[in-house]
């Protein structure tokens, strides 16, 4: 479903070109649970952002469902993020002014669902992640674990093909982190494709497959 071929990413640092990702070849098939593991600064998030169509590679080819992403325009990339990809971030990235259910409804707003549909589906997903009694709480009224589950609900609400999670347990204590990981495993068991980014070998061990990243290159584990 996801195929990266010879992906490079460089940042211009003044005069210098700083390579962040080098010659990445990676294929992820539907239903797979992959962990991308590496030290801090190894380029995991950069790789994740490219997979998530938030950023374009400097060179190389990226096929999402056999479609060459590098040829798409900004609106087309945005729509892929909206309809086919769910994001979960380390810092949750919820909008603090909105309630849990409003946060979950947000991707559906941009997809153009009716109000009623939005409310019903957002509520169903929040119930599914165990937050049926926290619908109208704002993020600052929720614990870290609850916030991350709201974020997972938001990632799922448009029924994505793939869930991308960047250090989803990074801001949580080990106990709540484990609960979130259980949630991901459960989703995977139900058939969801997941790409998990972490620097923690124990967390990575929950995935089916581990891809190791070192200095922007994929290395043997």
């Amino acid at each position, binding site marked *: 479903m996801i195929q990266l071929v010879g992906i490079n990413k460089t940042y211009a640092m003044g005069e210098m070109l700083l390579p962040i990702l080098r010659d990445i070849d990676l294929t992820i098939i539907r239903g797979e649970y992959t962990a991308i593991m590496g030290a801090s600064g190894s380029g995991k998030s950069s790789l994740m952002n490219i997979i998530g169509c938030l950023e374009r590679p400097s060179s190389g080819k990226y096929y999402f469902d056999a479609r060459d992403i590098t040829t798409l325009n900004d609106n087309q990339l945005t729509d892929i993020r909206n*309809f086919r990809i769910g*994001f979960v971030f380390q810092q949750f990235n919820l909008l603090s002014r909105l309630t849990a259910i409003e946060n979950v409804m947000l*991707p559906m707003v941009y*997809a153009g669902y009716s109000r009623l549909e939005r409310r019903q589906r957002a509520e*169903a997903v929040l119930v599914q992640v165990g937050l049926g009694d926290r619908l109208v709480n704002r993020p600052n009224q929720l614990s870290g674990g609850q916030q991350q589950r709201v974020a997972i609900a938001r990632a799922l609400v448009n029924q994505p093909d793939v869930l991308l999670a960047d250090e989803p347990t990074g801001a949580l204590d080990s106990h709540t982190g484990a609960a979130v990981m259980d949630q991901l495993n459960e989703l995977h068991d139900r058939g*969801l494709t997941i790409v998990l980014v972490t620097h923690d070998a124990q967390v990575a061990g929950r995935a089916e497959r581990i891809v190791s990243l070192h200095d922007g290159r994929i290395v043997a584990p």
Partner: protein
Amino acid sequence: MAPVTSPILHASPQQRRRTRAALTWADLLETIGLAWSSLVSNRLRSALTMLGVIIGIGAVITMVTIGRGAQSQTEQQLKSLGSNLIFVQSGVAATNSPASQGAGSATTLVWDDAKAIAHAASSVAHVAPVLNLRSQVVLGELNTSTMVVGTTPEYQPVRDFLPLTGRFFNQAELDRADRVALLGQTVVDSLGLTPSSALERTIRIRGEAFTVIGTLEFKGVNSFRDQDDQVLVPLTTMASRIVGVNAISGISLDSISVSATRSSEMEAAQYQITNLLRLRHKTMFPRQDDFVIRNQADLVSASNSVANIFTSLLGGSAAISLIVGGIGIMNIMLVSVSERTREIGIRRAIGARSSDILRQFLIEAVVLSLFGGVLGTGLGVVASLIINAIFGWRAGVAVDAVVLSLGFALAIGVFFGAYPANKAAHLDPIAALRSD
């Protein structure tokens, strides 16, 4: 695999959306609601930002109302002079100012001119010759300086002056040069009289005794002079007893007031009078006319052009404050964009197109300025009503200024919101997400 079916993850392909639905009015309303709640969450800041627009819009409406009120006031005063009125004045036209009353002081017109106009000009209804002199009027211990006007009974229909008490002098009194007078209400007051007690009293003008036979109805102050501060006497009496000079050519006049038969005859009447006087005064080209003809329309348009400049100056300076208000909105929207960079990044990541972000911030700016515009309109309407009440104007509130101002507020929101909104829309999602 996937033995457990989840309604969330395994929706049928029909249920699962792959393309955006078109934007509906409901969506737009919702965006407006969102913008509103975002402004409410920053209440003080939004209020302070709106203040510029509130004051600007309020000022535009109030200033235009004031300008219009003053203008319609002047128009009414000019109408109070009488209808279809034409002024013929002695002297050479002062060419430098169209609004000037100032014909020269030389009295070139005579009573025979007035008689000729009445006789020969077919579009003329009534003719009132006028000879003025500023003089003291004395009653016992009291005296006042006023304008003594010598004229004929025709003055009544021409200038639309009716007696409040008593009566106007008649043709017989004019022919006999009787010493009778009508007092304007300002003079009645100055001499310590009332409209009824003034009748039959004897006043002295330049030592001559006059019997008061009437008082004039109240006319009010117009832009030129106090129409109630005058004493009317027969022209013949005026010439022989007060001015005391009779030219060989007859009684000299300062001016002749003429009324046309109909307003559509005004132009014809003016031509007839001009030609007649040129013949009588032998002032055919290249000799310059020794008289000046003006009508009410000239006076109205002269005063209107002044009032229009006045109104646009007031409105213009108020509009500048409106632009300052717009800059305030731009400023606060830029602050808002940089404060909400992360929010923008999040929205972009989960599927907001740059046009969605643009719309969000643009609508926020428009809601801000339009709401400020509505409040400013309220302020302007209230201020206008108060000013109308104070000055007793019936001009009402400048409705077109209200509509225009609200349109302007909308335009200001769009114009000054465009730059910040565009900036927000073109933020790099990744850079926005990484910011904090």
